[in-house]
C-alpha cells in the first residue's frame, strides 16, 4: 500500500497515456461519430457533473475522510433552486428582474451546499463521528428531506435564461465545462498554494501530528467538507439546468462513480495524496469510455462492467510497475 502512492507521478503519466489511448481507440472504432464536433460538445456537457462531484470527493479524501452525501447535497440544492424557480418567481417576470431571481436561485443552491457541508464538518470534527458513517447518515437525511419536499415527484419548468447554464456555450466552450474549468482551477490553486490546502494534505497524512504541529484540525476539516458541499451545490445547478428538472434521487450511482474517478485519478483514500489534474484526466477517461461505448451500442451495464474492470486494471498495472521500479533501484545499487 505504501509503494502504491510513492510513485504517484509516474502513475499519473501512465493514466494520461492510457486515457489518450482510449480516446484514440474510440476514435478509430467509430470515427464517424466519435471524432465529430457534436460528440466532443456532447461530452463536454456531460462530464462536468461527475467531474465536480469527483473533485468534491477528492477534497474530503485528502483528509482521510469521504463525503458520501455529495450527490444528496446536489439534489437537495437542485430542489431548493427548483422551488424558487417555480414557486417564488412571479408570472411574467423577464429581463433584469428575472436575471436577479436566477442569481438568487443559484446563490440559494450553492449556499445549501455550504450549509450541508458545514453540518457534515461539525458532525465529523466536533462530534467525532467517522466520515463514512456521518456522511452516510447525512446522505440519507438530505435525500430524505428532498423526498419529503417533493414527495418523490420531479419539479420542472425552469426559466429559459437559467437553462442556458446547462445547455449553451460560452466562448466556444460549453457552459458546464466552463464552470468546471473555473472551479477546478480554483480548487487546484487552493490545494497547492494556500495554507488551507497544505493543511488538508497534512491532516490526511497524520492527524495526530497535524494537531501537535499547531494545525487547527476542526477548522480545516469543517472547511473541507464545506468546500465539498459547495461543489455539490454547484453540481446541482448544472444538473437541473441541463435536465430542466430536479429530483430527489437523481444520479444515485454518481457517488460510487465519483469515488472510482478519484481513486483512478490517484487520490489515496487513506489521505494525504492526490492531485486535481489526476482526477480531471480520470473523469475524461471515463467519459471517453462511456461515450465510445454508447456509440458502439454497449448498454449502460456494459459500461459499469468496463469501469470496474478499468479500475482494477489500472491498479494492477500500477502495482506491477511500482514493484518493477523498486527492483530496478535495487539492481542499480548492486552494480555500483
Amino acid at each position, binding site marked *: 500500500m505504501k509503494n502504491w502512492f510513492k510513485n504517484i507521478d509516474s502513475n499519473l503519466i501512465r493514466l494520461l497515456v492510457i486515457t489518450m489511448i482510449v480516446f484514440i481507440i474510440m476514435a478509430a472504432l467509430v470515427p464517424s461519430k466519435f471524432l465529430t464536433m457534436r460528440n466532443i460538445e456532447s461530452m463536454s456537457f456531460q462530464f462536468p457533473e461527475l467531474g465536480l462531484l469527483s473533485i468534491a470527493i477528492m477534497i474530503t479524501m485528502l483528509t482521510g475522510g469521504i463525503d458520501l452525501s455529495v450527490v444528496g447535497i446536489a439534489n437537495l440544492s437542485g430542489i431548493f433552486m427548483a422551488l424558487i424557480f417555480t414557486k417564488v418567481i412571479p408570472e411574467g417576470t423577464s429581463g433584469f428582474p428575472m436575471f436577479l431571481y436566477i442569481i438568487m436561485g443559484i446563490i440559494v443552491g450553492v449556499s445549501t451546499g455550504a450549509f450541508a457541508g458545514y453540518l457534515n464538518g461539525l*458532525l465529523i470534527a466536533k462530534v*467525532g463521528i467517522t466520515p463514512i*458513517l456521518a456522511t452516510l447518515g447525512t446522505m440519507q437525511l438530505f435525500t430524505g428531506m428532498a423526498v419529503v419536499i417533493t414527495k418523490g415527484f420531479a419539479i420542472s419548468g425552469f426559466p429559459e435564461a437559467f437553462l442556458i447554464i446547462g445547455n449553451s456555450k460560452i466562448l466556444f466552450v460549453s457552459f458546464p465545462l466552463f464552470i468546471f474549468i473555473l472551479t477546478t482551477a480554483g480548487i487546484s490553486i487552493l490545494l497547492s498554494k494556500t495554507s488551507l490546502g497544505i493543511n488538508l494534505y497534512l491532516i490526511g497524512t497524520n492527524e495526530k501530528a497535524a494537531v501537535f504541529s499547531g494545525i487547527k484540525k476542526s477548522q480545516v476539516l469543517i472547511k473541507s467538507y464545506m468546500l465539498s458541499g459547495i461543489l455539490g451545490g454547484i453540481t446541482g445547478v448544472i444538473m437541473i439546468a441541463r435536465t430542466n428538472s430536479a429530483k430527489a434521487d437523481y444520479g444515485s450511482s454518481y457517488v460510487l462513480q465519483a469515488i472510482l474517478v478519484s481513486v483512478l485519478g490517484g487520490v489515496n483514500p487513506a489521505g494525504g495524496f492526490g492531485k486535481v489534474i489526476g482526477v480531471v484526466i480520470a473523469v475524461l477517461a471515463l467519459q471517453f469510455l462511456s461515450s465510445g461505448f454508447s456509440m458502439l451500442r454497449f448498454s449502460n451495464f456494459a459500461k459499469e462492467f468496463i469501469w470496474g474492470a478499468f479500475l482494477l486494471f489500472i491498479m494492477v498495472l500500477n502495482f506491477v510497475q511500482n514493484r518493477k521500479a523498486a527492483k530496478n533501484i535495487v539492481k542499480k545499487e548492486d552494480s555500483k
Partner: protein
Amino acid sequence: MKISESGSMLKRFRHEFIILAIIVVLSIIIGSINSQFYSIGNIYSLLKSTVIMGLFALGSFLVLVSGDIDISFTAIGVFCMYVTSKLVLLVMPGAGIVLIMLVAGLIGVLLGFINAVFISLLKMPGLIVTLGTGSMIRGFLLTFIGVRIINKLPDSMIAFSKITFLNRVQENGHIIGLSIGFVVFIALAILIYLALKYTVIGRAVYALGGDRVATARVGFNITKVQFFIYGTVGFLSGLAGITHSSFMRNGNPFDLVGTELSVIAAVVLGGTSITGGKGTVFGAVLGVFLLVLINNSLIMVGIPSYWQRAVIGIIILLSTGSVALQERRSQGV
C-alpha cells in the same frame, strides 16, 4: 506482581446492550401509538424482513471486524441468484432448495475469492477493490447474462418462501407463520459466532482487525484468512440472493444493489468498529433488527413512507453521534 481488575460483561458489551435497549424502547413507543405493532402478523413480518439484510450483514460483519470494507456483496448476491436460477431452470428445474442454495453459495464463494485475490495481492483497501469488482460483477450480469426478470422461478424456491413454522390461525381463517428463512439466518449467525470464537482462523479475523502487522509476525497466513473472509461473504451473499428472490417470487437482476451502505450502517450501529477488531455477531444482528424496525414501523406510527429516508438518516446520526461523544468523554478530551 500486579493485580489488575477484570472487565465486567456489562462494560465489555455496553454498545450491544444500548442498542437492545433502544430496540425495546422504540418498540414500546411504536406499540403504544399503534397496538397493531404487537400483532403476531406484524412481528412475523418484521422478523422475515430481517433475513436478507441479516445474511448480508453477517458477511459485512466479518469484513469490518478484519479491518476492511466490502461493497460488492449485493452484486455477488444478485449475480448468484440470477445465474443459479437460470441454470437450474435450464438443467434441473425440479432441483430442491438445498441444492439451489448450495450452488448459489458456491458461485458466491468463487466470486468472493476474486475479491480475496485482489485484496491480498494488491494490498489495496477493500473499499476500492470491491468498488471495482462489484461494478464488474453487476455489469457482467446485466450485459452478458440477462436483464429480463425471471417470473417463473424453480418450484422449490417458490415453495421455500411458503415454508413457515410456529403457525397461528388468524380470525379470518388465514394461517400465518414465521418464515423458515429466519431460522436459516439465525442458524448461520450462530455458526459464524461459533467459528469466530472457537477456531483459530476465526480469531485471526479479529487479530487482523486489531493489528495487521502483528498478525503476520505471529505467523498467521494473512492470505488464507482473507480467502476465508471473502469466501464466506460470497457464500452468504449467494444465499441471500436466492432467499430474496424466493421471497419476492421473481428473479429481478436489478434488485439488491444499492443497499450496501445500509447494511454496513446496520452492522456499525450494532457496535462493530469501522476500523476493525471490535464487534460481535450479536451486535450486528441487533443492528439489523433496529434498522428493519425503523424501516418497517414508520408507517405504523402514521409517518408517511416518504419520511423514511430522512428518519433513518437522523437515527444513524443520533446513534453514531452519541457513541462518538461518549468515546470522547471517556478519553478526557
